[in-house]
């Protein structure tokens, strides 16, 4: 690897100071003061038809500007998923509909001069519902008498197994070789079902949007979104506003994690402003975020493994049933990732099968969430691997080392399974899993600590581990682009569609450009995610930004460098081959004459053959090199109460070269702690009538600063040739291992296998009683 000055260096994020000092930055900070406040009437019923809405009393309330119901919207089905086009999600959602499909579904909205009036108006809306029988148990959804989507006009964009008459949003099946035959032949088998729960993203900034018409009479939306360009396209299609009349600007975003990939609120704000010609604003309450945005897809996963007596895994069968909730957003693609970014971990099998359904239920919609199916599959597979190791009488790490994917290898799954479509064959040009596992063992002290130690005071300490992989963008589908513009005095603008949602992409993209252009990061001024001003980017999802958007920036910087050298050669009267590019200056190899970048740029602006140097480059992946990791956890558990806590979580990660090691560490550690939340406490609960129980942070418990004692994070030396400066993506990989690692650690401590998340002391107690 070439020595770098900016890339792979510890550089402070470019925006941290202004954000800490409280400067206005987020969507609600930039809302016009006079904007109408929008409030949404949400369904109290899990499933109902709206027979009528009497809005006369609400409209008559002084201060109410407009009340919108389904009758006020053009009837165009779309998906809120926020994906590329055509979407692999069914178009099964109307902006507002005459049916409500979960408690919290939108019925109507009010826009008023202030919040109090808007809320008072909601109470004056009289809705007559015809209540229908809800489907709340996802294992009974398929073929249920109650059909959640019986409306006209909804459709799939291409075959995804969409059968709404059976409550099936999507289905998938793939098989390599003959799984049943191989399992029958196996000397040792493990069969087990696992359940994963709904998890809430809980970005600290609630979903927020505001809309206005500008002086050119165009609709301008500021939105806390991960996908501004998709938002523009979907709004245009659903509301029949020409694309050229819409501008979407993403200000600073206070966390996303997949929850802001979708359209939430944008339709209503856009319609209110289009109809009233007045600015409007909509900020979800925390209750609305919990009740009416997204959760992770709950799943049941039936895992069957076959192996030889000496520990060669010969077959994996994975059946999944996924609950997409009321709408089919990300139904197929999350489900496929449960197979495609999990099963290739054990690539030496003779046969592998992945199949199952994604069903509708009358609960809040599931959607994209960091890990995107892989965390669910990882919990099932990596739990089952430990179960197999025990049956074989083998150390679980040794079993993994014997069977896991290695550098230079491939899996047939890569070619079979893509993002709702066929995949892309690829070899693992970088895969340091072997190192990650070995180093993780050292860091946790595996040899001394496995499986458990008594530490007195009725407590045990045990260890557990899991390995994981993810991806780097969606090959052949999602594109990112970057523009670099030279300014006088020799500094640059970097304009990217890439969406910084707090992960630090503005900083790392500036680092990539600065490295190639040989300048300090401050000389690269970043502006991102504005559909009028920046080039396109699919958005911040699918671990895309470092690899896809980063490659676009790298290409643009290389092209800019070429243009600069041409201009310097012309200016110095030599050939381009004679120019020694030094970033802030150019030196003629012929006569040693030097020209500073500052002088060159000033001359180009004001004095000689004047021109604006500006280049735009695009990139889409032709593969999606997976980051890999090994996660090892040490827990301390009370033998009586079964309460436990994390003593240390060791992560050893191969994400190629880290563009910014500290920010990459932040991605991993943030992911680990979200994964630990899912493993240990977080659980979106609904009551028998479909109403959400966990509607605030008091009832929905995410980890706090006191909950995790120690995180140990290291990166493997790795250089991915196809990535910018050797990088792969790192946004999601951290979240995958904690559920299985915790389950395995609990088993290693007390000998009980918890097969549903979260792993609570109550479940451990119950499992122990059952065992005795």
């Amino acid at each position: 690897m070439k020595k770098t000055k900016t890339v792979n260096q510890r550089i402070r994020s470019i925006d941290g100071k202004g954000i800490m000092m409280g400067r206005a930055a987020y969507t609600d900070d930039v809302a016009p003061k006079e904007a109408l406040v929008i409030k949404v009437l949400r369904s109290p019923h899990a499933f109902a038809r709206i027979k009528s809405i009497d809005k006369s009393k609400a409209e008559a309330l002084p201060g109410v500007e407009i009340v919108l119901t389904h009758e006020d919207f053009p009837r165009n089905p779309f998906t809120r998923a926020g994906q590329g086009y055509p979407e692999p999600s069914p178009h099964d959602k109307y902006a507002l509909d005459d049916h409500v499909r979960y408690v919290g579904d939108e019925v109507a909205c009010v826009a008023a001069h202030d919040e109090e009036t808007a809320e008072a108006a909601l109470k004056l809306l009289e809705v007559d519902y015809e209540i229908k029988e809800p489907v709340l148990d996802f294992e009974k959804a398929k073929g249920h008498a109650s059909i959640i989507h019986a409306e006209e006009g909804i459709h799939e964009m291409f075959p995804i197994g969409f059968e709404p008459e059976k409550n099936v949003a999507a289905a998938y099946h793939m098989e390599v070789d003959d799984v049943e035959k191989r399992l029958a032949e196996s000397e040792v088998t493990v069969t087990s079902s696992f359940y994963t729960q709904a998890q809430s993203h809980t970005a600290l900034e609630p979903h927020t949007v505001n809309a206005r018409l500008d002086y050119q009479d165009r609709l301008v939306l500021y939105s806390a979104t991960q996908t501004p360009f998709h938002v523009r396209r979907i709004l245009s299609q659903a509301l029949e506003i020409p694309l050229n009349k819409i501008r979407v600007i993403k200000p600073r975003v206070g966390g996303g994690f997949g929850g802001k990939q979708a359209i939430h609120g944008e339709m209503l704000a856009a319609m209110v402003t289009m109809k009233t010609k007045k600015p409007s604003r909509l900020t979800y309450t925390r209750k609305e975020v919990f009740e009416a945005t997204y959760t992770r897809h709950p799943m049941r996963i039936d895992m069957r493994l076959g192996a030889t007596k000496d520990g060669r895994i010969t077959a994996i069968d994975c059946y999944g049933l996924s609950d997409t909730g009321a709408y089919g957003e990300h139904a197929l693609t999350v489900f496929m990732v449960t197979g495609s970014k999990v099963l290739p971990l054990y690539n030496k099998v003779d046969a592998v099968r992945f199949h199952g359904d994604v069903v509708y239920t009358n609960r809040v919609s599931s959607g994209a969430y960091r890990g995107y199916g892989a965390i669910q599959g990882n919990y099932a597979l990596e739990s089952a691997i430990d179960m197999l190791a025990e049956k074989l009488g083998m150390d679980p790490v040794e079993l993994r080392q014997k069977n896991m994917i290695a550098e230079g290898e491939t899996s047939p799954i890569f070619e079979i399974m893509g993002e709702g479509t066929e995949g892309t064959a690829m070899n693992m040009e970088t895969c340091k899993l072997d190192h990650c596992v070995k180093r993780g063992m050292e860091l946790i002290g595996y040899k001394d600590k496995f499986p458990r130690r008594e530490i007195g005071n009725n407590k045990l300490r045990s260890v557990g581990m899991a390995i994981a992989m993810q991806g780097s963008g969606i090959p052949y589908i999602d594109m990112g682009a970057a523009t670099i513009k030279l300014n006088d005095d020799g500094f640059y603008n970097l304009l990217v569609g890439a969406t910084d949602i707090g992960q630090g992409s503005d900083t790392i993209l500036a680092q990539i450009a600065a490295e190639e252009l040989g300048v300090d990061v401050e000389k690269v001024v970043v502006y991102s995610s504005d559909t009028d001003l920046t080039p396109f980017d699919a958005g911040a999802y699918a671990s895309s930004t470092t690899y896809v958007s980063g490659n676009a920036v790298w290409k643009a910087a290389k092209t800019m460098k070429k243009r600069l050298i041409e201009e310097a050669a012309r200016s110095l009267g030599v050939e381009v081959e004679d120019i020694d590019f030094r970033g802030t200056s150019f030196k003629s190899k012929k006569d040693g004459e030097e020209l500073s970048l500052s002088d060159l740029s000033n001359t180009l602006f004001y004095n000689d053959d004047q021109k604006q140097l500006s280049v735009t480059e695009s990139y889409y992946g032709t593969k999606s090199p997976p980051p890999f990791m090994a996660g090892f956890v040490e827990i301390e558990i009370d033998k009586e109460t079964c309460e436990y806590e994390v003593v240390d979580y060791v992560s050893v990660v191969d994400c190629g070269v880290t563009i910014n090691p500290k920010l990459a560490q932040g991605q991993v550690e943030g992911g680990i702690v979200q994964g630990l939340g899912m493993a240990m406490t977080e659980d979106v609960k609904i009551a028998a009538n479909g109403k959400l129980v966990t509607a605030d942070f008091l009832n929905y418990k995410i980890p706090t600063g006191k909950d995790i004692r120690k995180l140990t994070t290291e990166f493997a030396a790795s250089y991915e040739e196809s990535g910018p400066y050797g990088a792969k993506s790192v946004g999601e990989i951290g979240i995958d291992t904690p559920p299985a690692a915790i389950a395995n650690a609990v088993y290693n401590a007390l000998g009980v296998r918890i097969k549903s998340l979260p792993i609570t002391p109550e479940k451990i107690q119950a499992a122990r009683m059952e065992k005795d």
Partner: protein
Amino acid sequence: MKIEMNINGRKRIFDIRPDELLADTLRRHDYTSVRKGCDTTSCGVCTILIDDEPVPSCAYLTVRAEGKKITTVEGIAEEAERLAGCFGDEGADQCGFCNPGIALSVHALKLSAKAPTEENIRHYLVGHLCRCSGYQSQVKAIRRYLGDTT
């Protein structure tokens, strides 16, 4: 009704409703560093100092602030800038929605304890939910900051 407060060293008189919450009052008057994240005083992004004590302003009636000393992060700009440097060095700043509130709590911690331990810091952070960082980098950054200045 009218209310008078001292905000960041400046006398301010606002026209308010009796049921108004201080977070809303402050945001309406462009103290946008005071953020709203949960409505149940659980998350900490609306933290301000009232007479140097950290308080979640989303559950504090504005009328109660009559005559009080209110500090938002703009009122401790130099400290916030130094803390931002420490956050930057530890990679602790991600989305940043919680950061102004944390800066104010850290300032209060510094005023209240001579040499805060890691335990003290983690205790203070319980009132500041963060979904991005995993907390460890924040703890390191705050230790670095307190070591630098106390």
